[in-house]
């Protein structure tokens, strides 16, 4: 007890937490205002807005899973090289050699779970009619987040570079071949010719843009790696910041008027 007291009275502790323990009403308010991580929240909230039966905590769980994916993803990057020579072997080593051998499992199952919880979160937002004014735009941001979550999962699926990976990506990206006008097997691509030269070929169409090659190869691995580890997570982080900010600005969790 005395030690705890000493610590809490030390200059270091007080410089980090600018208030006493949140045990009384005043300090429970102060903690929400002075702590960076907590200030995402309001100070007080309608009881209904935090009922598990209302929000299912699904948005929160999705966000938490995103954080889990970020941490396990960074750890995985220590062990993984996105090249034809190493990708598969590094994954093998992760399973057989690396200590804490469930890193890949945590990351993969966390990703599946995040797709599911995103859907469930959308489902609850729909069922409570929380997309209605004034929250229309936050729903739109949510839809983009949903799309990005799927793309994160999709780009990550390729990285183990096993049969499962390249064929799932091949099947998935074959669709882009058929993009109207922009895919070389798509309707209307015949119309895009300049001076008799076909502009849309298998070396210039939408699928080529996605894969960086005519088929899923090393260029694709590199492209998906960069998208998966840098581009999409950054976009998600930015949109999440806006999403949370809008929840507050739109009047907090929705409720009957």
């Amino acid at each position: 007890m005395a030690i705890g007291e000493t610590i809490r009275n030390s200059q270091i502790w007080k410089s980090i937490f600018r208030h006493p323990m949140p045990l009384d009403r005043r300090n429970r308010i102060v903690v929400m205002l002075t702590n960076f991580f907590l200030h995402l929240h309001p100070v007080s909230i309608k009881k209904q807005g935090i009922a598990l039966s209302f929000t299912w905590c699904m948005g929160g769980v999705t966000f938490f899973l995103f954080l889990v994916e970020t941490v396990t993803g960074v750890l995985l990057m220590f062990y993984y090289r996105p090249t034809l020579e190493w990708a598969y072997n590094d994954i093998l080593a992760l399973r057989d050699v690396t200590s804490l051998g469930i890193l890949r499992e945590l990351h993969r199952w966390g990703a599946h779970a995040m797709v599911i919880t995103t859907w469930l979160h959308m489902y609850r937002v729909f069922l409570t009619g929380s997309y209605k004014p004034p929250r229309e735009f936050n729903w739109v941001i949510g839809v983009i987040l949903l799309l990005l979550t799927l793309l994160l999962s999709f780009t990550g699926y390729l990285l183990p570079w096993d049969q499962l990976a390249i064929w799932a990506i091949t099947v998935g990206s074959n669709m882009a071949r058929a993009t109207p006008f922009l895919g070389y097997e798509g309707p209307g691509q015949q119309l895009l010719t300049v001076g008799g030269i076909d502009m849309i070929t298998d070396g210039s169409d939408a699928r080529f843009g996605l894969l960086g090659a005519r088929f899923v190869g090393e260029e694709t691995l590199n492209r998906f790696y960069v998208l998966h580890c840098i581009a999409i997570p950054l976009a998600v982080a930015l949109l999440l910041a806006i999403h949370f900010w809008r929840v507050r600005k739109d009047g907090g969790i929705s409720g009957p008027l």
Partner: protein
Amino acid sequence: MHSNGQFLKDVAGFLGSYYTGLALMNAVAAYLLWRRSKQPALALAWTVFSAAMMILAGLALSGEERLVPKLPSAVTSLVNQLSGPVLYTLGTTALLTVLFVFRRFFVKPMVAWTILNGMLLLMGLSMADANFASIVMKPDNVPIVGLVFLLAFFTWVATKQAVVNDDRIAQGLPPMEKLDDEKVLVWPDLVYTELICMVAVSAFLLVWAIFLPAPLEEPASSVKTPNPSKAPWYFLGLQEMLVYFDPWYAGVVLPSLVIFGLMAMPYLDFNKKGNGYYSIAERKFSYLTFQFGFLELWITLIILGTFLRGPNWNFFGPFEYWSPYKVEVLNNVDLPQMFWVNLLDRPLPRAPQGSGTLAQIGYILLREAPGLLLLGAYLVILPPLLAVTVFRGFFAKMGFIRYMVMSNLMLLMLSLPLKMILRWTLNLKYLVSIPEFSLNF
């Protein structure tokens, strides 16, 4: 099919713990019914069920062919024989409809609990079938099993509250959520809830990661195509649509429309009611539209694509062996063929040798006239027609642009089930088939 004996030994441990889990779950339920709800009769019933599950657990642990509880082979082969895309789609639609219409009955906790136990028991019995287990226990398919149960659970949670709210609103009372609008401090109420959620999710994820290894197949090879080749599970609904549409529509246009339609939704739904609380009666139209799109056209197609589509994307019953040699006869016909050849008994219109581009296009249009006219009527004539009949009220409230966007999104969404029906009844392949421009619909 391989021998069942070794398989049953392999799954004995899993099935044993599965039934033990079921028994424990129901023992807790029985205890709560007895102590908390003071319903000894119900408590007794669930105690008996729990004991029965304990016996099944023992039998399953034996790993013996004649002891492990499983579905009789007469049942499994009947299910295999009966099931197909038509029955599956109609069946799931009928099931969802029944659940919706009789929702008052199904949300009762005891009814829901009975159904949950029935589902879990059926799942356990099916797991003793080697073919069923080999698909369901594929590591990447496990999340979808989870998704099905989670969706069922949360749909129940939501519907239960909606039913209560709808009753209250009918009596002129505010929804339940309104009763709880006193303010509480975020610390500790919300912060602690979040902390508990984080701990629970972490624990769940750790257990999952320890017990289910992530899949890793042979190294990638661009010459060895696996059969079936499947996209990641969350895109299998789209892959299933490829049965009915060409990739440009199923794989590019429809998904873009789904995204666009979702984004447009808050701007199309002009109904001010049902904002911030669970309700069905106050927003039936948007509720049914969303549920049809999400549960029927997205989720059930994913389940179909994951569990019931095998080699060559052929349909397989849940207990059927995925044989790559299964052949399905495809005798689908295009509409121009049906119209010109089968109906009018004439050859397909074709431009004479050496005619100019314009003439060729003219002949293509003539050949495809039946399909183009039908599509034109569907997308151009139907919206205004609906605006002055069924959707008259909508049109008045929404204005021209919003109404047009809504009705076209609606019709495009319905293009999928309609095409399914045309395929099943008329063997129709394409309504419009212009290979000259890679445009098939």
